[in-house]
C-alpha cells in the first residue's frame, strides 16, 4: 500500500509540474509518484523550458485530460542518477527489444498499473537507430502523444 504524498512544484502557477524532494528519497518517491499519478517524466534541462512546461501543464488541465495526469521534471543531477536504474528498467520493460541510449532519453510516459514506459521522447531523435523516432523530440505535440499512449493502456477498472 503506497501512502499518498504531495510533491513540490517548480513554478507556483504550474500546478501539475512536480519535482521530487531529494536524491535520498528519490527512488521511493518516484515509485509513489508513478502509483498515484499518470506521469510524463522529463529528464534534465532543455531549451525553451518555460514555454514547453507551461504547455505541458496545460495538457494536464485541458478538457479531456485525466485528473491524474502530471509532469515530473527532474533536473537535479543526484536525483537523475538515483532514479536512472528505475527508469531504465521501466524502459526495458516497456520496450524490451528497442535499441536506445539512456542518455539520449529526454522524456518518457509510464503506465501506472504496470510501471512500464509506454512512450519515449529523445534529446536528439536522429541518434536513435529506429527511423520511426526521427520526429520524437520534446514538443507539446510529443508530450500529448506520450500522455495518449499512457491513457490508452490504463486498465478499464482504474479511474
Amino acid at each position, binding site marked *: 500500500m503506497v501512502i499518498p504524498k504531495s510533491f513540490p512544484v517548480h513554478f507556483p502557477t504550474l500546478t501539475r509540474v512536480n519535482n521530487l524532494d531529494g536524491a535520498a528519497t528519490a527512488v521511493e518517491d518516484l515509485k509513489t509518484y508513478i502509483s498515484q499519478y499518470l506521469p510524463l517524466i522529463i529528464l534534465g534541462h532543455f531549451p525553451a523550458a518555460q514555454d514547453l512546461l507551461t504547455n505541458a501543464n496545460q495538457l494536464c488541465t485541458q478538457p479531456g485530460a485525466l485528473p491524474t495526469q502530471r509532469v515530473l521534471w527532474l533536473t537535479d543531477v543526484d536525483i537523475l542518477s538515483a532514479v536512472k536504474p528505475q527508469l531504465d528498467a521501466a524502459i526495458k520493460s516497456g520496450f524490451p527489444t528497442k535499441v536506445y541510449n539512456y542518455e539520449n532519453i529526454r522524456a518518457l510516459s509510464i503506465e501506472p498499473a504496470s510501471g512500464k514506459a509506454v512512450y519515449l521522447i529523445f534529446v536528439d531523435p536522429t541518434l536513435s537507430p529506429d527511423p520511426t523516432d526521427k520526429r520524437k523530440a520534446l514538443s507539446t*505535440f510529443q508530450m500529448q502523444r506520450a500522455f*495518449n499512449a499512457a491513457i490508452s493502456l490504463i486498465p478499464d477498472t482504474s479511474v
Partner: protein
Amino acid sequence: MKNLQFKVAMAALISFAATLSCRAQLTPSGIFTLMEESTSGKHMDTLPQTGPAIVDINSILHIKIDLAALEDEMFRFQGISGSDARLEKLKMFNTLLQNQNMILKLINEKFSGSATPTIEDYKELASQSEFIMGGLEDNLDDELWDELTSPAMEQQFSTFDGPYIVFVINFLAEKAQLLRESLTEQLNVNGEADSSLLIFFRLGAFIKNKSGGRPVHVENFDDIATDSYSEISSFSAPLSDAEKKELNNTRLLNDSIQSNTGQATFSFKQLIKSRINNLFPSDTSRVKLKTVYRSKMMELNQSNATKPAARILVDNELNLGRVDQFYTLATETYQQFAGNFPKELLNGDSLDQTFDRFSRLVNNSLNQLKGDVSLYEQSGSRLSSGEPPPGAPDLDIVVNAYDSYASSINQDISGIKSLFSDIRSILDPFRKAYLANEDFSDQVLRFTAGSIPPIGLIELKYIGERKAGDEILIKAVLERGKKEGNRNFEQKVLLRRYVTMSRIAVHVKMSGSVILANPYNRASNPAITLQNKFQFSPTYGIFLKWGSRKSKFYNDFVAFGAGLSFSSPDFNLDGTPEFGSGIIITGFRDLLSAGWGWNFGLDTPYTFIGFNIPFSIGGIQSASPEGFLED
C-alpha cells in the same frame, strides 16, 4: 441435347428478365455509405452497396460521406490531375480530419460542463486523437512538421483556450483550406473564383411510388421543410379522431391526384385506342386514293394514247409509296406514345415533329403530282383540236382523290396536335412534377470543397405519407457552375441508390377470413354431428408480423405472421355458433393461414386452414384481400 438447349434458353430468359427489372443505380464504393438506424437506436447497420436495400419504414437513414474521397473526386472533375502533389496532400489531410467531428463531439459531450467522463471516454479521446497525431507524425512533410512544432506554435498553444487536439485540428484544417484555395486558384477571375467553373456537390432524396414522386428533406443538405410527423404504427389499432382526420385529408388529396392522373391516363388511352382503331378518318380516303390511283394507272396504261398520262401516275407512284410507309411509321409512333403515356408526351415535342414531317411529305407528294398533271394538261392546249390530252380527266380524278386525302390528313394531324396540346396544358403541373421528380430544386444546397457536411440524415418519420413498398431515391451529383443553361454547366452523378421502405419491425395486424375447421377427434365427442370433414367458419386473427431486410420477395409475397385466432364454428349443427380460439400462422400476405384451436362450446380441439380471398361460402363473405394487402 434438347433439354440442355431448353435450360440454356431458360437461363438466358431469366437473365434477360433480371436485366430488364434492374433500374439504373450508381453506387460508387468508397465515397458514400448508407446506414439504417432503427427508431429505438438499437439497430444500426450498413446497407449493401449493391442489390436490394430494404429498411424499416420508421427508421433513420444515414448517408455518410468520405470527404477525402469526395473532394478528390471534385478536384478531378474540375480538371486537376490525380498525380498533383497538392491533391495527394489534401486527400491525406482530409483522411486525417475525418474523425474531427467525433473528437469535437466527444469533448463537448463528455468533457465539458458538469459531465462526468468514464475511463472509457478518456481512452476513446486518446485513441481518436492518436489517429490524427500519429498520421501527422508519419505523413506530414518536413516544412509543415517544423511549423507545427515551432516555438511560435508552442507560444500560440500556451494562449489557446482548448485541448491540444483541437489546436492540431485547427492547424490541419487551415492547411487543408489553403490547399483547396490553391487548387481552385486557376478558376479565379479578378481575384474571385468564377462561379460558372466552380464545382459544387449536391445531395438530395426523393420518395417514389406509383403515383410519382416528391423531394424529401435530407438533414444538412437542403432547405426543404420536414413534412408532418407520421409514424407507421406497429399496432394497427384504430387511430385517434385527430389522426384520422389528418390522414383523411392527406388521403383525399393524394387520391385526388392519383385519380386525376389515372383518369387522364385511362381517358387518353381510350381515346388513342379509338383513334388507332379508326386511324385516321383520312385512312378511308387513303384507301380510296390507292384504289383510284391503281385502277386509273392500269386503265390508262392499256391504250397507247393514254400511256403518257399513265406515265405520270407511274412516276408519282413512288411518292405515294413513301407516304404509305411514313403513314405506317406515324401510326406506330402514335401507338408507342399512347403506350408510354404520359411520359413520352411530357418529355418533348417529338410527336408534333413526327406529324409535321408526315404532313409535309403528303403535301409535297400532292404538289408534285399536281404539277406533273398540270404540265401534261397544258401540253393538250398545243393540240390542234384544243381538246385536253388523252387521260387528262382520269388524272383529274386521281388528283381530286389525292387532294381529298391530303386535306383529311392535314385535318387529322391538326386535330391530333390540338388534342396533345390540350392534354399537355392539362398535365402541365404533372409535367413539372414529373421533371422535378429527380431534378434538384434550388432548395437543395450547393457545397464547395471544404464546406461539405460529413453526414446527411433522412428521418423517414418526417417525410410525410408513405407506404410499405415505396422507395427512397438518394442522389448525389457534382455540378460545374450553378446554372444549367450556362455553357460550362456539367453534371456528374455520383450516387443513385434506391432504398425500399418495408415494415421490418414486428407489428400487430388484425384480419378476418374464412377457415375450414376440422374437429379431428370427433369420434370421442358425440356432440359433434358434422358429416363433412371440414366446416366453414368465420374467424378473426390478431397476429404479429415482421419483415426482412434481405428479401424483397419475402416482404412482397411471403410475409409470415403468427398469433391468435377467434372463430365461431358450429360443430353440433344446432344453428348456434360456438366460440373457438387458438393459434394461427399466416403466410403469403395473409392469403393463407393454418392453425390449431379449441372449441370452448363443445370442449373439443380442431385444426384449420384458412383463405383470405374474396368469395362467399354458405352465406359467409370472406374479407377482400385488397384491404389486407395494403399495409
